[in-house]
């Protein structure tokens, strides 16, 4: 005989009713059928360990009901805090400067103006191949940013392909 888990619910009830292995059973009255159409009570013999029979749908607290969104009240009153709402001390602003010409060969990058900016914390140079995926780009990005804060000014070799330059001048809010 197959294990009970492979049977439908109806099969499982039938197996319980015909269980002759000596396992404890109980006979309960349970509602069967579609409410408003065929709903009626039936006696069924089930294992003694069977949880209590669920009441019909209208008497259930959660099943078949639409619960209220748990943070709905916070959202409609504006009290819900989003990432953009958080202000922490020492937060930095990043400014990106993109290449102004698409599909251009990058010959040089001049960051001296950004470096002269008195409030600038770090200036970094980043080149992305336009054809690469964003995930690849973000790894470059992380590497470049960590390098920037180590005061490294290493520049990647200008790639002779579609290149996008990101130049970040980072400054403290006053």
């Amino acid at each position, binding site marked *: 005989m197959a294990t009970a888990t492979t049977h439908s619910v109806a099969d499982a009830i039938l197996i319980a009713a015909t269980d002759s292995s000596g396992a404890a059973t109980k006979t309960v009255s349970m509602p069967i059928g579609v409410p408003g159409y065929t709903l009626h009570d039936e006696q069924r013999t089930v294992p003694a360990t069977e949880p209590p029979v669920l009441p019909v749908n209208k008497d259930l607290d959660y099943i078949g009901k*639409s619960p*209220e*969104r748990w*943070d*709905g*009240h916070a*959202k*409609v*009153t*504006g*009290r*819900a*805090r*989003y990432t*953009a*709402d958080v*202000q922490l001390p020492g937060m930095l602003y990043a400014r990106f400067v993109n290449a102004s010409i698409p599909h251009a060969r990058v010959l040089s990058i001049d960051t001296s103006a950004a470096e002269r900016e008195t409030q600038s914390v770090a200036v970094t140079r980043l080149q992305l191949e336009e054809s690469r995926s964003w995930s690849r780009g973000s790894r470059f990005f992380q590497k470049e940013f960590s390098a920037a804060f180590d005061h490294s000014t290493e520049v990647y070799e200008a790639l002779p392909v579609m290149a996008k330059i990101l130049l970040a001048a980072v400054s403290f809010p006053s």
Partner: protein
Amino acid sequence: MKEFGPEPFPVTLHINGKEHALQIEPRTTLADALRIQLNMTGTKISCDRGVCSSCTVLLDRMPVNSCMTLALDAVGHQITTIEGISANEQIHPVQAAFVRHDAMQCGFCTPGMVISCVSLLEKNPHPTEADVRYAVSGNLCRCGTYPKVFAATLDAATQPASKA
């Protein structure tokens, strides 16, 4: 004509029935003054260019995009933000209807939506669905909760005492 700035200078803003004295640069938008200086972050900024209306506040009970309004221009006007819609822990019937109809998913556009709908009901207590559609036509919702927003607002219109 008096000239201001670029340095910060003192102004008084009337927000939700209270006076707030603050130092602002003339370039500061009302949205930034509310969010950054007064930490009233219920007013959201999504596009910061007057497209999405998530920053909607009431200026003398008229809905405006606070990201397109200089804080300086709001001086002398009564500003109502989403925090002021639900004053004294009593939520507005529109807000209650939004929760009841689940008229939100991420909820970022919701403060702006609520303010647009509150403003509609103040001007037109018995709107049609077309009126509600028009009232929130400037409010962008990427989750696509519009049908529930319409239903919630029409439901709120049937509730008694829909006053802020």
